[in-house]
Structures are given as C-alpha cells and as structure tokens.
C-alpha cells in the first residue's frame, strides 16, 4: 500500500538535516528558519496521519506504507495505528514548540539544527516502523542525534554526560539488537506483524529463545526508557545539556524508547506471551514499580531543579512500563495517555525552568525563592505543570494516573495501585517544595535569592515589554541594591534586609535574552496539559481500536 505521507514524515527531517550544514557554508543563522519550516510540515503531515487513523482505522483497514513498494515479507513496512499516531503527533508538536524557545534561548549554530532535525526524523522513524531491525537503526539515529545535542554547548561537563549516555545507550541498543537477533533466528522474520503470527506457529511462546529475546529486548529498551536501575545516564544528560536540548529530549527520546517497548510487548510478543510466561510480566511490573518509588525518592532529594525533574522522569516511566506490564485495557490506555502527557508536561516544565534560569540565573530549588512574583506567567506555567504532573485534576497527568491505577486494581495488582497512589504523594512532595520556594519563601532568607521587586528590571517576557528586554537589565544585578527601595517603596523593608546582608550582590550575571516566545511556549504547554485533562473520552475513543486489537 502506498501512503507516502508516512514515508515523508521520516524522510523530510532527515533530508532537511543536511540543509543547515550546506546552506551554513554561505549564510549565517539559516538553521532556525529551516527547522521551523520542517517542523510546520511535520505537524501538518502528523495531523493528516492522525486524522486518517481516526477515520479509517475505525473501518478496520490497515494504514501502512511499504518502502520501495516491496511487500512486508521482503521489505520494510511503515505502520500507523492509534498508538504510533499519538506518538507521531507528540513528536511533531514538541519539535515545533521547542523551536519557539530555541530562537532566543538555544544554541544558534547551524550544526545544532542539523542534529535537531535528524533527531526529529529518527523519532518519527522509530515510531512508525513495523520492522524490529529497522527499529534498532532508528533508535541509533535517535541516539546519535541526542548525544550530539547533549554536548551542544561544547563544555567539558556536557561532553562527559553525553559520553556516559552514549556508552550506556549504545550498550542498551546493542542488547536490543541481540534480542531482535534471537527472535529472528527463532522465527525467520523481522516484520512485527509477521512475528506476531510466527512466534506461536513456529516455536511457541515458552521456547527459551523467545524468552531470552524478550529479556534482551526489555533490558535494552529499558535503558532507553530510563527504568531504574538502568536510568543512570538520564540525570546527567538532562542536567548538563543546554535548556533547549533538555526540553526537547526529555519529552521525546525516552518517550520513544518506552513506546518501542510497548510496541514490542503488544505487537510482537502479545499478551498471550505474558499468559504463557507469567514470570516475564511479573518481573517487568516489579522492576517498574521499584522504578516509581526509587525515582520519586531520588527526585525529592535533589537540590538542582533540572536533576529533580530528571529523576521524576524515572518515576513516571516506571509507571508507564508498569502499565504496559499489567496488560489490562485500562492500564494500557492509562500508560499511553501518560506517555503522551508526560512528554508534554516534561517539555513544558524544562522550558519554564529554562526561562527562569535564563532570566534570573536560578537553578536550585532554594534560589527559586519568591521568583513566582517576579516572573508571574512563567511561574504560573511551571506551577500548573507541576500540579498536572502530580495528577491534580483536571489535567492529562491525572487522566493517565487514574487509568493506570484503575487498570492495576482491575488486574488485581494492589501493590501497583498502592505505589501509584504513594508516588503521587511523593510527586506532590517535590512539586510542593518547588511551589513553596516559588511563592511562599521570602527571597531575603535565601542566600543569592532574587530580590522581590523591580519587576521591570527583569522582565520574563510575559510581564509587559517582552520582546527586546535585552538592553535594560543587563547591568542590574550588580548595582541593584542602590536603586531598589526608590523604585518600589512598598517592598522596601524586605529588600532592605536583603541588602544589608549583602545577599543580593550574589546574583549571577543575568543573560537578558528571554523572548516572548520562550515564555509563550511554556505557557502554551501548561494550557495544553490542562486542556487535555478534559479530552479523556476523546483519547479513549481514538485509542479504542488499538486496545481492541492487542488485548
């Protein structure tokens, strides 16, 4: 079948990734416009795919594209179903939204945008492919682009984080390849749908080769999805990479890793494998449950905001993998919703954190003191997204956790349901720590805190003038104490104390380059995360055909 939009989704960004490099020989700063055009095209193609999946899959037809016109017995097949269409939409939207931040906030070199587009194409490919070996190739393309992006600010620390990620990530992908090799040897095919039929027909689910291949695949993709104890690359990679990159990869790279795991479990091994080998499901759920608790506990202990959010991802992916392992309809629905929701929320959170770090130089929870009043819009977005991550309704975070907990009770896994609830409390603990700092901690109590008033000196873009705050505040931090009381007499007592202690002087030099776009994208994602909280029935209807098919 020929549905070229599926191939174009993958091919356009990969081909366009060469343009910033080639055109960069003649022109400066062409990366961003090229990436913007490609991202818009990707969003358009993704909406076509989502629309066609929604309208046509309901009729029961397959929505596939055979590369090169070869049927799936010989060639590689791209498949869109409700699950892959959801992730395709997520990738396209996040790639576009992050560009809104990258224009001012990100690395501006053309090579950065080449890697940016390559990552986008790799993610699309990994999401759409219906071939287990092709999935490996796309996962490695994703990996390559991610390692380059993590090191994009060219510092030693980020290079170290990228190398750690490279070694662990490649080892994980290689283990996945061993698993794919085992299943290929057992059945003689690499196509996912063919494998689905071939495994029970040729060797059966309890064959040692099939069980071993599942083990390798689960461990390999567990590394990519950062499930405890395979998560160690994640905090370093997220914390050391530039803010733009963190937002981009946190929402997508591990998401696609977890997606691949879900795809393999449900399309290749199928729940019948879990019935034949209950141990596999039990181990998967147990590891994922440990991951939820460990990730949450580690997150609470982090002083650095980005590191805290990275550990929170470990917990959230644990929840998603647990949902995949439970294999009930509600749990799987919740897992997919949380997969998408977590991608949106984490991207938004890291964008907001990036705005605050750029505007005020604050990166630790302590130094967030009182920032809520200085950057109201960004902080409101940050707070909303944190509450959504906790699972306060109405938000997509609530929907995902609700369905997962419901599925866990349905499957009789009371421990998992309990852990989901417990982890919500733990999420609340670290979210509340940040919220308390943002709104309820007077800044003069904190060494190096941001002074409470003089808002115009540090516009976060959403306050009033936004677009070109560059010239005004550049010189402020150093000599601020002198002018402050005059500007805003109401807050003078508080600030006076701050001045006497000399704390204000310790603010890092501010890079005054926050644009309206940077704040707007964070606010947009916060809005989307809440709005999708009302879209539960719609998402259920969209994913229904997939759930019916695999369960």
């Amino acid at each position, binding site marked *: 079948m020929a549905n070229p939009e599926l191939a174009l989704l993958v091919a356009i960004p990969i081909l366009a990734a060469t343009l910033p490099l080639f055109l960069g020989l003649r022109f400066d700063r062409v990366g961003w416009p090229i990436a913007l055009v490609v991202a818009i095209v990707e969003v358009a193609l993704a909406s076509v795919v989502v629309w066609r999946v929604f309208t046509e899959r309901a009729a029961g037809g397959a929505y596939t594209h055979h590369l090169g016109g070869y049927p*799936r*017995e*010989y*060639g*590689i097949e791209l498949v869109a179903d409700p699950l892959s269409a959801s992730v395709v939409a997520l990738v396209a939207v996040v790639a576009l939204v992050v560009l809104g931040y990258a224009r001012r906030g990100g690395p501006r070199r053309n090579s950065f945008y080449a890697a940016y587009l390559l990552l986008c194409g790799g993610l699309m490919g990994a999401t759409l492919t219906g*071939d287990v*070996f092709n999935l*490996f*190739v796309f996962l*490695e393309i994703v*990996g*390559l682009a991610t*390692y*380059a992006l993590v*090191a994009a600010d*060219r*510092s*030693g*620390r980020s*290079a*170290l984080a*990228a*190398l750690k990620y*490279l*070694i662990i990530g*490649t*080892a994980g992908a*290689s283990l996945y*390849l*061993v698993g794919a*090799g085992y299943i*290929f*040897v*057992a*059945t*003689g*095919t*690499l*196509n996912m749908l*063919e494998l689905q039929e071939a495994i029970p027909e*040729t*060797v059966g689910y309890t064959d040692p*080769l099939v069980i071993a291949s599942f083990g390798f695949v689960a461990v390999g993709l567990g590394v990519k999805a950062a499930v405890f104890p395979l998560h160690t690359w994640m905090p370093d990679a997220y914390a050391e990479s530039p803010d733009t990159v963190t937002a981009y990869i946190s929402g997508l790279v591990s998401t696609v890793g977890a997606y691949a795991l879900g795809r393999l479990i449900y399309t290749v091994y199928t729940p019948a494998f879990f019935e034949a080998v209950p141990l596999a499901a039990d181990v998967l759920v147990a590891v994922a449950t440990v991951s939820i608790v460990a990730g949450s506990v580690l997150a609470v202990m982090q002083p650095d905001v980005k590191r805290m959010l990275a550990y929170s991802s470990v917990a959230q992916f644990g929840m998603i993998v647990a949902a995949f392992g439970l294999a009930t309809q509600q749990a799987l629905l919740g897992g997919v919703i949380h997969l998408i929701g977590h991608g949106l929320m984490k991207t938004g959170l890291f964008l907001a954190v990036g705005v605050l770090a750029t505007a005020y130089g604050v990166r630790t929870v302590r130094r967030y003191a009182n920032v809520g009043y200085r950057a109201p819009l960004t902080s409101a977005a940050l707070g909303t997204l944190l509450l959504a991550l906790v699972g306060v309704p109405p938000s997509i975070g609530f929907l995902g956790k609700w369905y997962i907990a419901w599925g866990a009770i349905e499957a009789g896994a009371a421990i998992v349901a309990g852990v989901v609830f417990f982890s919500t409390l733990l999420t609340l603990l670290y979210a509340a720590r940040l919220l308390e700092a943002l709104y309820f901690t007077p800044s003069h109590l904190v060494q190096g805190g941001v002074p409470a008033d003089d808002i115009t000196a540090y516009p976060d873009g959403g306050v009033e003038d936004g677009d070109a705050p560059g010239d005004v505040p550049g010189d402020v931090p150093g000599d601020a104490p002198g002018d402050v009381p005059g500007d805003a007499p109401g807050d003078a007592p508080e600030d006076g104390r701050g001045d006497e202690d000399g704390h204000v002087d310790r603010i890092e030099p501010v890079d005054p380059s926050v644009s309206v776009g940077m704040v707007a994208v964070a606010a947009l994602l916060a809005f989307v995360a809440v709005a999708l909280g009302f879209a539960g029935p719609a998402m259920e209807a969209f994913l229904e055909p997939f759930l019916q098919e695999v369960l």
Partner: protein
Amino acid sequence: MSLAGLGVQAPLLLGQVSQPMLLDQFTQPLLLDQLSLRYAYATFAILLAVGLYMMVASPNLVKKVIGLNMFQSAIFLFFVATAYMHGGSVPVIPTEGGAVGEYASPLPHVIVLTAIVVGVSLTAVALALIVRIYTEYGTLDERTIREVVDDNG
C-alpha cells in the same frame, strides 16, 4: 523482511542454533559438526562479556569505547554465525532462476552491514566527545575527571 521469501526455510536456519529438540527434528549432525557450528556462539558470549566488562571496569574513556566496539562486534559475529550454512554456497541467484541448492542466508549479512555502519558512526561521535573531554580536563582517566568535576562543584 523474511527468510521464507528468500527461499531459505526457517527450520534449516534453526538447525544452526543451539536448539537441541528442533536440531534433532531436522538434522542429524555429528558431534564434530555441532562443535564446528557452535564455537561461534561461544565466542559471541565470551566477547559480549569481555566487552561489557571493559565498559564497566576500565577507567580509561578510550578503552571504554573499545569495549563498546567489542560488545558490538560480538553481536555481528552472532548474526553472521546464524547465516552460516554448512556446505552452502554464496547467495547469488541468477535472475532466470533455477535450483541453486543450499546457500547462506543473505539477510543477516545485510543486518550486520547496517549495524557496522551504525557502530562506526557511534564510535566517531564517542571519540569526538573524548577529544572535547581531553582538551577540557587534560586526562582520559575517569576517576581523575570525576575528582576535577567534584572539586569545581
């Protein structure tokens, strides 16, 4: 991608792998034959373990990357070994068709070629990162770098 379409029967391939039950079902290999078939799988396992150990245990970043390469090479060996057909010919089939007898499965070779390309690009990126790290810290020893990083906060 499927072997059935390429004229190789899956069970034939299965006979190559350590699958006692199926092996008996389809072939009656001599002990020597089995050994000649399986030493490749033993080497695969050993190389995989050695590569993993190097990645974990060596403090030298370049040696870690070498370990990673060995880890991947082990997997290439595994794929090539599964394609091996005792007494089989090269998988070049004339377009006019006709019986060609047994031949080695070409698909795993294609997979290995692709995987080698992936491995080479990963090694290139890894070495580029190591060059960056070396210019920044002046050493390739992981422990020394960690000390420097910790000291700088």
